[in-house]
C-alpha cells in the first residue's frame, strides 16, 4: 500500500486526458481532402496540370490526367485517365483501398469501374455492388479528372465560356425556365436528390427533393441544405463548398446537382 495522493491523482488524470485529446485533435489535418476534391480550387490548376502532357495537340486534349484523391472510409481512391483526341482510351486507379477485405473489394471493383469508364466516357457509371464506397470514391476522382480534361480542352479551343454554360447557352433561345431533377445520390445517411430551375442557362433556384432524415440527420439536413441551395444558385455550377459537419450530405448534394446540371446542359 503506497501512500495515496488523491489531489495529485486528480490533477494528473485531468492533465493527461486534456493533453491527450488536444494532441489527437491537433494531429488531424484541417481540411478534408475529400471536400477539396470536389471544391472549386483544383479546376484552375487542372489546365496547367494536364497541358504539359496534352498541350501539344490543338483542339484536342491528349495525354494522361490524374483525378483528385477521393477519400473514402476504407482508403483513398485516385483515377488516372489516358486521353487521346478528347476520348478516354484507358482508365486506371493509381490509388485504391488496401488491407483486409479491402484488397478483395478493390480487386473486384476497380477493373469493372475502369472498363465502364472507357465505355461510358463519363462519370455516369454504375457502382459495383458490394464496393459502394470504393465506387463512389472512384466516381468522385473520375469526375475531377473529367473536369480537368474539359477545362484543358476548353482552353485549347479558346471557345467562349466554359463547356457547361456554353452548352446550355445555345439552347437559351427558348428562354424558357425549365426544372431539372438530378439523379439520386446515395450517402450513408440516406439519399440526396437535387432539383434545379434553369433559366437562360443560369440556375435560378435549387432545392433538395430528398435529403437524409431521422436522428442527427434532421439537424444536419436543416443546417446544410439551405446553405447548399444558396451556394448552388450563386455559383451556377456544382463547384460549391461542403458544409462542415455535414460532409456526406454535401457530397451527395453535389453529386445530384452535377447530374442535374449535366441534364440541363444536354
Amino acid at each position, binding site marked *: 500500500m503506497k501512500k495515496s495522493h488523491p489531489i495529485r*491523482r486528480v490533477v494528473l488524470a485531468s492533465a493527461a486526458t486534456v493533453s491527450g485529446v488536444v494532441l489527437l*485533435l491537433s494531429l*488531424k489535418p*484541417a*481540411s478534408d481532402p475529400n471536400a477539396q476534391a470536389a471544391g472549386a480550387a483544383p479546376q484552375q490548376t487542372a489546365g496547367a496540370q494536364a497541358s504539359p502532357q496534352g498541350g501539344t495537340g490543338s483542339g484536342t486534349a491528349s495525354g494522361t490526367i490524374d483525378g483528385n484523391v477521393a477519400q473514402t472510409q476504407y482508403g483513398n481512391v485516385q483515377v488516372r485517365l489516358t486521353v487521346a483526341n478528347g476520348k478516354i482510351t484507358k482508365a486506371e486507379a493509381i490509388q485504391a483501398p488496401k488491407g483486409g477485405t479491402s484488397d478483395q473489394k478493390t480487386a473486384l471493383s476497380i477493373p469493372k469501374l475502369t472498363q465502364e469508364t472507357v465505355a461510358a466516357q463519363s462519370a455516369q457509371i454504375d457502382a459495383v455492388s458490394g464496393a459502394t464506397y470504393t465506387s463512389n470514391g472512384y466516381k468522385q476522382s473520375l469526375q475531377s479528372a473529367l473536369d480537368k480534361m474539359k477545362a484543358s480542352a476548353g482552353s485549347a479551343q479558346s471557345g467562349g465560356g466554359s463547356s457547361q454554360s456554353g452548352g446550355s447557352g445555345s439552347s437559351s433561345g427558348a428562354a424558357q425556365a425549365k426544372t431539372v431533377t438530378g439523379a439520386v445520390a446515395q450517402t*450513408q445517411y440516406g439519399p440526396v436528390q437535387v432539383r434545379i430551375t434553369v433559366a437562360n442557362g443560369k440556375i435560378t433556384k435549387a432545392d433538395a427533393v430528398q435529403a437524409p432524415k431521422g436522428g442527427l440527420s434532421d*439537424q444536419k439536413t436543416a443546417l446544410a441544405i439551405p446553405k447548399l441551395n444558396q451556394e448552388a444558385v450563386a455559383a451556377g455550377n456544382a463547384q460549391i463548398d461542403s458544409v*462542415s*459537419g455535414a460532409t456526406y450530405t454535401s457530397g451527395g448534394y453535389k453529386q445530384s446537382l452535377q447530374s442535374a446540371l449535366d441534364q440541363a446542359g444536354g
Partner: protein
Amino acid sequence: MTTTLAGGRAARRQTMRRIRPRRSPATVLLLAVWAGAVGVLWLWWMNTPSIADQNGKILNAGRITGLLAGYLMALVVLQMARVPALERRVGSDRVARWHAMSGRYTLCLVFAHVFLIMWGYALQAGKSLGDIVQQTIDSINQLPDMGKAAIGTGLFVLIGLTSIGPVRRRLPYDTWYHVHLLTYAAVFLTFWHQITTGNDFAVEPTAKTFWYALYGSVTALVIWYRILVPIRLNMRHRMRVEAVIEETPGIVSVLIGGRKLHRMGAEAGQFFRWRFLAPGMRFSSHPYSLSAAPRPDMLRITVKAIGDHSARLRELTPGTRVWAEGPYGAMTAQRRSRGKVLLVAGGVGITPMRALFETLPGAAGDITLLYRANTTQDLALWDELAAIADDRGARLMYAVNSPDGERPDISAERLRQKLPDIDKHDVFMCGPAGFAQSVYEALRGAGVPARRIHHESFEM
C-alpha cells in the same frame, strides 16, 4: 467451542500444501484495459478524416470523451460483477478502489462529453455557447434515444453526488447502496444513444458489433456472478445462525451452520458478504471475514459493533436464515512466497489473521502474530490465539497502549529487535487505515520488500 474450532484438522491438512505463490493478474488486466482504450481512440481516428475548424474540434473532443466514457462505463460495471478472477486473485479491496477511481473518472468524461457535444452542436447551428441549454433540449427532443440518455445522465449525477466523500459519510449505508444500484439503469439508458447517434458506430458496423459484445458480456457476467451463482450457493448450503457469542465488550462472534460448508471453497483470510434475513437487516449485505477456518458444518465471523448493521448482530436469534455471497478476498495462503510469515492485526482486523494463524502451513517458529489493540481487554479471541500458538509452536505478541494512554512503539528498529530475520518474512496485515499505513512504513524500513506485504483495506 474454542477448542473444536482450533482443531479443524481437516481444514489444516487441506491448506498444508506446498507454498505456491500465485501472482495477481492485475498487470495483465490493466494492460488489456489500456489496449482497449487505444482501440477505441483508433476507431475515432480512422473515422475522422479531418477537422475543419474550432467547431469541429469541440465536436470531436466530445466524440472522444464520449467513446472513452462508453468504453470505461462497461469496465466500471464489470469491476463490480464479482468475477472470481477479480475478487479472489486481484483482491476485492483493490478492485473496489479501482471501481471508485474509474467510476469518478468515467463520470467526469460523461459530463465533459455532454458539455462538449452540446456546445459543438450549438456552434454548428450558428448559435453560441450561451444557447447550450436550448440546444440540449432540442437535441433531446429531436435525436433518437436521447431522452433515455438524458434520464440516465440525471441518474449518474445523483449517483456521483451521493458518492462524494462527505455526502457519503453522512448517508446511511443502505441509502447510498440503493442509489448506487441505479447505475445499472443509468448504464442501460445511456447505452442506446451511443449506438444510434454515435458517428463511429453508424459508419463502422464492426465497431457496433464490438460494442454490443462488450456490453453483452458484461451483462452476462453480472447476471451470472451477482445473481445465479449466489442463488446456487445458498440453495446448496442453506445457512442459519447457530449462536451469537460475545467475545469482548463490543465484539461478537456469529456461528453459522449449514450443509457441506467446506465445499464453498472458502479459505482462511477470505470473507463473505452476509445478509441476515431478520427484520430490518434483510435489505443490506455486509462483508465480514471468517475468523476461523471453515468447517464442514460451521463458519464463524467475528464483528465489532461500529455501524448500524454490525451493532444489530448481537440481537440475532439462532435459526435466522443467512444469505451469503462469496468467498471473496485475495489475502490467503496463495499470496505467500516465503516459509516465514508475520501476521499483523489491528483491533478487529484480527478476524482473518486468526484464521490464517491457525491454518498457514509452517513448522514451529515459522509463524508470528503481532496483535495491536487499545487495552488487553480489547484483545478479542486471545485465549484461542494462545491455544493455537501453544499447539503449533507459533509466536504470539501483542502491543497495547500504556496505562497513561501512550501508543506502543511499532517502529522499524523495534520490529527488527523482536524479529531479527523480519526481512525474510511474508507479512499479512489487516487493520484500520492509519494503523496499516504506519506499520507498512515500519516494515519497509525494516527491510521487507513491498511485494511481500499483503494488505487488505476497504477504506477508499
